């Protein structure tokens, strides 16, 4: 039975003194892990040296591997497994959306924002919002374009919702699948420093579609020039996010294949935007008001005939 004295708190000497008293005692040393600089406030860091690390993701690859190993340990038939894909807070989702709309040149979206915590909330709900935004905006824009005509009878065009849903969800899931398969195949041939998991690719694609939501709302404006300017603008923004993400993953490969991959990514993205614009939004049949030109031709003809 322990006496009261043994249970009282005892001051231990400094480790050095104890060791000096008994040099043969076994010792255990625990080191402080070296603090890896957080990337969330990356704008405070030196942009020069950190840039390549940011793009390559080598500075925290060990840590991310550890995190990835710790997280998804539940078997895939349990509910907890899928909960790990929704482990995001509101501010994280908002940060990721902001990062997709304002791409910082030189910063990799996956390394900066996703950081081995890919979520399925963003891709799923951004796609759902985009489907309904395109359908509703298309309907509204057609309504405004055909408004004055006597033969026009408004229809809600509900069929187009299912078509929009199929297109956008297919794009957001099948293209990442194909890209992931392609990158895995190239990885087996050429040792790439950077490789992404399937969910990270889905995440990037999902968040990069966010810019199309305000674009689709602005497509209601029935001016061809405005619409095409919007297409180009949004394509530049979201395309740059995709390019900056995937360029480091392919640049160690054969130069032609790398350029072809990035070009294919951009082409598919452009195809989606242009296809949605063409299918869901009727062309505005606005005549170019040019009463001056016939008169000018008339005067030139008159003068020439003189």
């Amino acid at each position, binding site marked *: 039975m322990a006496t009261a004295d043994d249970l009282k708190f005892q001051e231990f000497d400094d480790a050095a003194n104890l060791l000096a008293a008994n040099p043969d005692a076994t010792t255990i040393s625990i080191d402080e892990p070296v603090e890896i600089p957080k990337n969330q406030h990356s704008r405070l860091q030196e942009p020069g040296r950190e840039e390549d690390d940011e793009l390559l993701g080598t500075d925290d690859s060990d840590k991310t591997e550890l995190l990835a190993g710790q997280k998804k340990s539940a078997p895939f038939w349990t509910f907890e497994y899928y909960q790990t894909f929704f482990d995001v807070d509101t501010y994280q989702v908002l940060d990721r959306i902001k990062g997709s709309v304002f791409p910082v040149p030189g910063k990799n979206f996956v390394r900066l924002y996703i950081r081995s915590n890919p979520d399925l909330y963003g891709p799923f*709900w951004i796609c759902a919002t985009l489907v309904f935004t395109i359908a509703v905006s298309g309907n509204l824009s057609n309504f405004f374009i055909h408004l004055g005509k006597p033969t026009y009878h408004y229809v809600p065009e509900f069929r187009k919702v299912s078509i929009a849903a199929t297109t956008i969800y297919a794009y957001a899931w099948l293209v990442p699948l194909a890209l992931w398969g392609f990158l895995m195949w190239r990885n087996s041939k050429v040792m790439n420093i950077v490789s992404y998991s399937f969910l990270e690719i889905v995440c990037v694609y999902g968040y990069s579609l966010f810019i199309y939501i305000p674009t689709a709302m602005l497509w209601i404006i029935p001016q061809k020039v405005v619409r095409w300017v919007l297409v180009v603008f949004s394509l530049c923004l979201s395309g740059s996010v995709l390019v900056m993400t995937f360029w480091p993953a392919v640049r160690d490969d054969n130069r032609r294949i790398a350029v072809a991959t990035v070009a294919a990514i951009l082409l598919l993205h452009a195809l989606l935007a242009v296809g949605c614009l063409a299918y869901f939004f009727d062309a505005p049949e606005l005549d170019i008001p040019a009463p001056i030109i016939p008169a000018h031709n008339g005067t030139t003809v008159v003068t020439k005939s003189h």
Partner: protein
Amino acid sequence: FPGLADVSISQDIPVEGEITVPVGSHSPDEDYSTLDEPVKDTIMRDLKAVGKKFVHVMYPRKSSALLRDWDLWGPLVLCVSLALMLQGGSADSKDDGGPQFAEVFVIIWFGAVVITLNSKLLGGTISFFQSLCVLGYCVLPLTVAMLVCRLVLLAGAGTVSFIIRLIVVGAMFGWSTLASTAFLADSQPPNRKALVVYPIFLFYFVISWMILTFTPQ
């Protein structure tokens, strides 16, 4: 352990607390008696429960009646009546008209299931059917709006009627969203509330859009 021999609780420290017995626990006698009651009583009891929930939706307070005794009769009745009222719209030969009955049904139920799954995956503590019950019952204001829209459209389909319909549908959409958020928001983790509320907003927005764009033949 000799040190513990003289440990005792003094007599004048009161031991008190509360034990709540969950309401609705059935004793065997009760079960036996409901088997014998007339059918009218059984139906009236269920109807009263559904009616009480309707009242809770129209005047949302932070009561747990909706959550505790969930039922799906109310959502079914609302969904079927909304889908029926959305029929008879402009179905051109192009067949590009309004939503079919099955489409409305699928959108409401599939949408409610997806939102429930979403809130559970984000860490919500509400049960699956409780959430379905709340989302289904909160379609009631929009069903009322649909009824009003059809009545207004009987009077005419001009700009004035459109503005009236817009105001009514907008107000009911706000009411639905606020009512369901009032019931569901407490069961979510605090830093993810917006992530859970946004899909509910989208869900009722889509239903409101279907109601607003309903045009008769």
